[in-house]
């Protein structure tokens, strides 16, 4: 009984958060030019934003890993978004890129870099994990996906720490998500306004 109540409570929280998250301005645009006003579907336990760039080789190398995690956590109602913050990643470019890399997840063009600012992302690939809280979206994890890339030129043959996966698991278990063990490595996000 206790568990059922707690669960119901969580659902209520999510619902209320969803209302908060419906911002006045859309988060971005989808590939058909429609505004994305809602990034958390009802019932989602967590949202992962994967900051991608069609022309960033390290970000592209992580695509299979992100697809794997999206599949793995789909039953746990973890929603993944492929966020494209760079001005050069237009709808046509991203559509072509998604087809080329067989990306099944939903893309959002971060046309105002609202999601980038919200997540505090600076490079691709980086990931942010959000959960609902009474005050709205709460970022519980921000940073690298794993420890395969340690710096430019410093790459492990295989990852030994799967930071994002660990963070999602902790979040789903209602534990604090461990923070990334090192910086993310990749390509800088290009500011929307001239520097």
């Amino acid at each position: 009984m206790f568990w059922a109540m707690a669960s119901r409570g969580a659902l209520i929280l999510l619902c209320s958060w969803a209302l908060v998250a419906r911002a006045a301005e859309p988060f971005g645009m989808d590939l058909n030019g429609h505004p994305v006003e809602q990034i958390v579907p009802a019932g989602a336990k967590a949202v992962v934003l994967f900051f991608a760039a069609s022309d960033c080789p390290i970000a592209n190398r992580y695509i299979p890993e992100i697809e794997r995690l999206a599949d793995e956590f789909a039953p746990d109602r973890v929603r993944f978004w492929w966020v494209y913050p760079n001005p050069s990643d237009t709808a046509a470019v991203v559509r072509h890129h998604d087809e080329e890399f067989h990306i099944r997840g939903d893309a959002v063009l971060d046309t105002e870099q609202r999601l980038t600012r919200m997540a505090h992302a600076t490079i691709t690939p980086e990931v942010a994990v959000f959960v609902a809280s009474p005050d709205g979206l709460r970022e519980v994890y921000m940073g690298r996906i794993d420890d395969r890339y340690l710096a430019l030129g410093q790459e492990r043959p295989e990852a030994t720490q799967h930071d994002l996966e660990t963070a999602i698991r902790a979040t789903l278990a209602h534990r604090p998500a461990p923070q990334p063990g090192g910086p993310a490595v990749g390509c800088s996000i290009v500011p929307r306004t001239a520097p």
Partner: protein
Amino acid sequence: MKRLRCISFACICGVTLLCLLTRCAIDAAEAPVTEPVTWNRQIAPIVYRNCTTCHHPGGSGPFSLLTYKDAQRRGPQMVQATQARYMPPWLPAPGYGEFAGARRLTEEQVTLIRKWVEAGMPEGDASAAPQLPHYDATWQLGKPDLILTIERPYTLAASGTDVFRNFILPYPLAATHYIRAMEILPSIPAVLHHANVILDRTASFRSHHSADWKDGIPGMELEVDSGNTFDPDSHFLFWKPDTPVLEEPAGMPWKLDPGNDLILNMHLKPSGKPETITAQIGLYFTPEPASKHPMLLQLEDDRHLDIPAGDRNFVVQDELKLPVDVEVFGIYPHAHYLGTELEGWAILPNGEKKWLIRIPNWDIDRQSVYRYRDPVVLPRGTVLHMHYVYDNSKENVHNPNAPPIRVRAGNRSVDEMAHLWLQVLPVNTPKGGPDPRLLLEQAWMEHRLAKNPEDTIALYNLASTLAGLGHSAEAVAAYRKLLAIHPEDARTLNSLGAALESAGDWRGATDAYTKAIALEPNACDARFNLAELALNRKEFAQAQDGFRNMLRQCPGDAEAHSGLGVALLGSEDSASAREEFERALALDPSNFTALYHLGEAAIESGEPQRATDLLEKAAAQRPGDVDTRERLAMAFAQSGRAGDSRAQLREAVRLAPDDANLHALLSQVLAGIGQLQQAIEEEERALRLQPKDADGWNNLGVLEARAGNSAEARADFQRALQLAPDHAEARANLARLPRR
């Protein structure tokens, strides 16, 4: 030709990860740092000279840096990559060897890039912009003479660890060609870190993987069987993204013979999506065979590669003393993921230390062959040193094992290697001495055996080298030593037979070949050698039996058919011999023996056109064979092609300047086309070599007489008569001369 097989060690490895910025050599033309730094004025010249070779659209770099917009997009990364010295990819520390194409940026260049980014990456005045470099997506040197494509497209998985795969490309031509340049089109440049091409002279790797070679064979390193003749690996056929064309120095092309395979070893990096690779190798021919013969030497100590888990400072060393003077053209250090500090140096006989290379932060992903700006001269007695340090701790980010485990030498990426390869050209070789490469091979193999007396490959190669040096007794002893370890090794028994034969012990040789055949009934080489031994002993019937027995076990062997043909010629059965030569040619259109004898037969039967066709092909196979040149000259002469005949004889005389008969023949051909003075000179050369040749003196007299030199002619005829008082032609010619 004896059939022996040596085993050569082919090394290959992995290269660059992300080719972010490539090829950064020293740029001279920069404005002082105090001026505002702009793309057009300072940065583009650095980038165009050093980076865009890879970073252009369609290039091997993962993105372009060709335009201002491209570079602006990557500005912060350019700062990071250049400051960390990650890009351009260049591992050797400055001051430890002067390398061609060094790509290390100067401190000033690195600072300029940083200042440009800090200033907001201004584009600057368009009028100051340098010309945009042009890159062609196809062959850099134009259409190659031969393009080889991997048998089946290979699909690289979207993710996972790096892939090391060997693709076999059989050489499809029927004639030998000399390769002056090689180019690789990887089809998806961005996933190919580096590639190595290994020559497999005997297609041994393909025969070991007969079922699945068309799909490529996984592995970082491989061993191939180097075949019948001493023809050691001699070139680094190493490709990396910024050097797509590999041009050999003048006089140093490499050779491809019919039956050879090229093995393309590729280090591939998954891109995030499945990639289908259809790599091609383009080869550019030269008609000139090599005039300089380098070879690859290896220092290694894989036997002592046994690195405890957690060891941060595991050292592996080796040293090798040079038995001859050499020039070092290039160097290729190689370790896998645990190597951290790789050093090579030479201690000269006078005690001077000469650095060959120093890599303070080894990274397999950015490995390369390094070629010296000027060859490094090392005199005989120099000791080469290798000193490698390995880190098998969890702090080593490249460690493929988490947690670290004990690591030994091996072919997989989780194993290790400690190799230092050098391309050396023997110099100051005494005339008439042995092939200096054999002396290098001997020193190398003896050193390997000193490290590991059980190294049977080294023992076999040493024995073969001793045989090649003509040290038959020592070769026999070495083969016997090997047989003491592996008494039933048919290949060693065959080689022992060959060494015994060279030592004049034909009974022992017969015994060894027979044992080899008993152990391995389809030991084709031993069967061939046994038959050929009989042929050399002019035991033609036995030789015929031997070759026929061999052909039952080893059908389709062109050399056996041509050997049988020679044995039949010995029994004066020229019709049957001709049939065998024809069979040999049907199997192998470049079979020299068949071409030669059929050509000779065509001369005898008055078919000069056929003779020239066959003998020209024979000469293409063995350009240095004097007999073939002589026969070809005869065929040309028979066809009335005196000019061609003269050309062949001139080449023959160049090859064998001490052969009096060749000079005499050339003299006759020259006389036939009216070049009397040159004819006289050639006959005189012949007579200097063979002064007691009465016919020669008579011929010289005739030439002098025709040239109107009666006095000289008289003296020549008299000389002929002194040597052979019954020389009728000389006497008649003397009588024909006008009286004094």
